[in-house]
């Protein structure tokens, strides 16, 4: 008997079932899963104005938010980097490389971020209003490291991609992608730790600053 068989047999024996797991039991479990039952959600998450909720939750997480037209994104990136006294080198996803970065004075490198990059630029699959969260899905052209390694993460979010809850985000993944990709990465605000004397410090292993640009 393998460890697997022993563990499964022990579970069944203790629950008063004999023999291996039956086809009916597997069918029951799969039927339960297919229901995708949704639990109670906080009233706040059902708010009509998900844009306002997203912005207020971002503020709680210390994520800064700007709203501009898509064509003005490079300019907003430049303004933000200036305001924080940061350099104009940005490592970003290739899908945005055609935007007018040079005109805004930004040196945009379309590639995955490495440890020397100071600012990473990404989009997201969608954003969740309930918690001010950005959902990034892994894909060849959308490296997650750009949101993680640099000290500053700037993310462009079309307002049409704001959903209310995590359940809505999962439904969107199923509808548009199908099965989950290798990584679903939910990022809410800059990284933090409180491991020394429970004192909250912003900036642990991930970014110190997260700036969301709504378009």
């Amino acid at each position, binding site marked *: 008997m*393998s*460890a697997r068989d*022993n*563990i*499964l047999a022990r*579970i*069944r*024996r*203790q629950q*008063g079932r004999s023999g291996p*797991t039956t086809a009916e*039991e*597997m069918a*029951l*479990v799969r039927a339960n*899963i297919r229901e*995708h*039952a*949704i*639990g*109670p959600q*906080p*009233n*706040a998450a059902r708010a009509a104005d998900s844009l306002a909720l997203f912005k207020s939750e971002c503020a709680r*997480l210390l994520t800064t938010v700007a709203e501009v037209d898509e064509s003005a994104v490079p300019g907003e990136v430049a303004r933000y980097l200036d305001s924080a006294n940061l350099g104009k080198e940005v490592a970003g996803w290739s899908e945005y490389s055609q935007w007018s970065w040079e005109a805004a004075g930004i040196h945009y490198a379309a590639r*995955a971020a490495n*440890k020397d990059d100071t600012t990473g630029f990404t989009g997201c699959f969608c954003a969740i209003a309930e918690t*001010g*969260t950005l959902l990034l899905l*892994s894909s*060849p052209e959308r*490296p*997650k*490291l750009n949101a*993680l390694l640099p000290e500053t993460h700037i993310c462009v979010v079309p307002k049409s991609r704001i959903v209310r809850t*995590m359940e809505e985000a*999962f439904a969107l993944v199923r509808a548009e992608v199908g*099965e*989950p990709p*290798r*990584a*679903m*990465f*939910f*990022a*809410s605000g800059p*990284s*933090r*730790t*409180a*491991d*020394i*004397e*429970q*004192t909250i*410090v912003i*900036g*642990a*292993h*991930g970014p110190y600053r997260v700036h969301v640009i709504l378009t």
Partner: protein
Amino acid sequence: MQVQSMFFKQNASAKLNDAVLQRNMQKAKGKFVDGRAKAVSEVENWEAIRTHAAALRDKCLANLDAYLLEFEANATRRGAVVHWAETASEACDIIVRIAKENGVKKATKSKSMVSEEVNLNERLEAAGIQPIETDLGEYILQLAGEPPSHIVAPAVHKSKEQVADLFEAAHHKPRLTDIPAMTREAREALRDHFLTADMGISGANFIIAETGTTLTVTNEGNADMVTTVPRIHCVITGVEKVIPTLEDFATLIRLLPRSAVGQTIANYLTLTTGTKMPGDQDGPEQMHIVLVDAGRTKFVGTDMQEMLRCIRCGACMNHCPVYQNVGGHAYGWVYPGPMGSILTPTYVGIENAGDLPNAATFCGECQVVCPVKIPLPDLMRKLRERQHDMRLRPWSERLPMALWAFAARRPGLYALLSRLGARFASWLGGKDKLIHALPGIDGWTQGRDMPAPEGRTFRELYAQKRGAR
């Protein structure tokens, strides 16, 4: 981690007299309790979410074998290799074997209590593989050579001065005591390890049957590096962590960070499913998932199965008056506080951890704050009964219990004895009406006096009132 739970009383006494620990624990206490209270008060239907969460955990546990098989099938389909380990030692064997077969020299780790449970770091080191803890708290403890004292905030017992000494010795840099500067120094020290490790080892807060997904919840972002950068990703987790669907995760994540640290959401939730896909620039080439039993199935199908609902938030310990005073190390194993007082005796044997179910005031706060409604005091009481039945408690406790039970079944005798007892205690109290030492059970009066009973007993008063009516 070696079990030290049989020495709970000695260890707890020592911790009560440890001035530095007492100061550190006092500082932490308010932050956890107040933070949770505020976060929970913002969710008007908190109770409904708790009830739903408890039910979904129960649903999964009722068909645990089938949910695990469904998880295994989906994870395997996505390219992960699922391993099963009956014991702690088997779990380590599996991971060490994978590491050796792939020539792994260095493994970065995100916080995993299961890995603490099975002594994984020790076994990796013995095999010539360098484990690097990357959660800041775990990193501090790895430098200190200490086990965690809390499941969410592992280094809660350390002061910043103690951490500063450790960092100065390890980083060979000037001693810093500014907490943000210390955090940055640790970030820089760990950066290269993240990018050069051959293997990443993480735990899993949950595993999802529907999709074969494993997931980690962190604030620091370290688990994302650990699961993204190295060419091999190894997950070590308990068999009870399986949940049916992504929607169930959405429910549980409303509860976990609020209960743990008072946050509406943890900063990073990393859901990983299988290996790197064609063309991906990041992600592991191999993914291994080690499902560990090591005592968990002992709960299945018993009157204590509710314990397996646990989502490891730590709220029970944060709110426990015993934990708040003695800290986590006194409990002598990985899981402290009320949840540990049930897990430890069951996992390592009740004879090795007999004091733990008794290390409770039964104030009930743990049950009140538990996000999945585990009846923790009831479960501790069941363990106490078991100890009594197995004759594991000393005669000095069993004999008085037997005598009390004898009297309690005879109301007349009970009334007489309680009257005599009250008079005796009143006499013991003397002029200042305080009992300084109780004969035979002086442990109770070592640090405090017991107020002596005064006047008549309840039965006498009750009889008098009935008579007067």
